[in-house]
């Protein structure tokens, strides 16, 4: 299944390294298979959170790694971690998917996918919390995914989102506040 159109991978996606998983430039270069095995779950979680749809996230994850493999030679570990680089590719892929969904909505005047009726987002996520997460916008969900689930630091997450670090913090703060409010609404 081909989701969205192919886009070039951004040039500066890994310009900032993260202290969590950034490899040293002096260490041995990992193979793509090793990177894929290490980062597959993280990328999948990010896409599930971003799209709110596991099925779509699976396809997008596969497409993300296909793109990453094609551009693997351009990846420079000195400039950032593989996770940051993969998340940026995943985001570009997901945005293409959102764009395709929007076109389809305009064509059919309805979303083909209803996030509220989709399968559960993650295992072990309490019901009210999961429902509250679904009510967030994709932009809020993705910042929560990047900062909380994938534990990217501020600069790396801002780089992935293409915004400033302050804007990233603001968006995260607002997303968490909205999340708490929606949890309260669900419980009430």
């Amino acid at each position: 299944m081909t989701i969205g159109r192919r886009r070039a991978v951004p040039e500066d996606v890994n310009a900032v390294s993260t202290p969590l998983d950034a490899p040293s430039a002096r260490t041995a270069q990992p193979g793509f298979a090793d990177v894929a095995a290490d980062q597959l779950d993280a990328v999948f979680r990010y896409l599930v959170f971003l799209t709110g749809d596991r099925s779509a996230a699976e396809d997008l994850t596969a497409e993300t790694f296909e793109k990453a493999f094609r551009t693997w030679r351009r990846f420079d570990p000195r400039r950032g971690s593989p996770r940051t680089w993969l998340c940026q590719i995943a985001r570009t892929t997901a945005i293409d998917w959102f764009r395709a969904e929007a076109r389809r909505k305009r064509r059919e005047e309805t979303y083909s996918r209803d996030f509220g009726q989709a399968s559960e987002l993650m295992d072990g996520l309490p019901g009210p919390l999961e429902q509250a997460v679904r009510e967030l916008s994709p932009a809020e969900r993705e910042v929560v995914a990047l900062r909380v689930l994938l534990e990217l630091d501020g600069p790396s997450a801002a780089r992935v989102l293409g915004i400033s670090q302050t804007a990233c913090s603001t968006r995260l703060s607002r997303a968490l506040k909205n999340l708490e409010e929606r949890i309260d609404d669900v419980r009430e």
Partner: protein
Amino acid sequence: MSASNAIGHERLEALLAGDAPRTSDETRRVALLAQLRDATLSAPEALRSRVLATAPSRSRAFVRRPSRRLVFVVIPAAFALAATAAIVHGLTTGSSRPVSDGLIADAPHATAGQLGKVPPTFSGANTVTGSGGVRSAAPQAAIASPQTTLAPVGGTSRLQHTDASLQVRVSDVEHLSSATRAATRIATSLGGYAQSVDYTTPQGGNGTAFIELRVPAQNVQRALAQLAGLGTLVSQHVSVQDLQHTLQVQSEQIGQLRRRIAALQQALADRSLPDAQRVLLQIKLAESKRALAQRLNARTGTVTAGTTARISLVVSTEKSVVTPAHKRGHMSRMLHSALGFLGVEAMVALYALIVISPFAVLAGLAWALARARRRRDEKRLLTA
């Protein structure tokens, strides 16, 4: 339970990093974060197999992309390269020996740069001019060497008129006087004469002598060499005008007039010629003789001009007559040449910048517009 009040960015970052909560709001926020982190989600095995199947296990060499910091190396390197090129240019062009006594003898073969940066110019088909300045450190040696010349003068069988002007600087008024007398003596010794001498010594210890000399054409080179040795040669200007064509034209006209006169005289010798026609022929004969006399005078003047050279000599004690360019030393000339080359480089760079800048601005605007549009599109998609 209400939502937590706004938590500052710094505190939020601290909580994300594992800092202990300080308030109830922070405690609630930490609990929320813990709930989110506790949730697990792994990629399905089918997806894992699908992804790993396409990924080769072997390591691939990374392509080292140039860092943006390379700009901080490239730009200084470009400036250094330009400066190096200018220095090399200065070394290669500025290291030419200044015109000196030794080059006086080689002046006919000297380059334009050696002749004070002013190349000999051809101001007409029959005229050659050249100018330059030299410094004579050993005037006596120059006088003693009659073979020395200052400019490409003579050396041809054609009739040529030489008009030269020299500026010579001497140290003081005493030397000015002796140099003036020596100039007259040089002209006389070479078969010429001093047409005029204007000797001025105003107050202040400086003085100037303007001397107009006439010397035979065959001795002009020797005259110039000896006159240049009277002091420090500041500048020279030599103009050679070819008179051969003029002489040839005048000779042909004279020949035609003589043939015409002979024909007229022969016709007038005919006694059967009518009086009216005889008068007409006599008038023509008189005109031809007058024209012949004019042509003969003109040819005499041409020959005289070709056999006598005019030399205008200015002997001065004023330092202001020294051309600054000739005061430059080796380093100064090299620096001047390098700076000139740098100026040319800057001019070329500026020209390229002027040509490229409109396109760069347009490209930048297009890029910014496309970026803004993409951002707006993404924001609309992700906030829906």
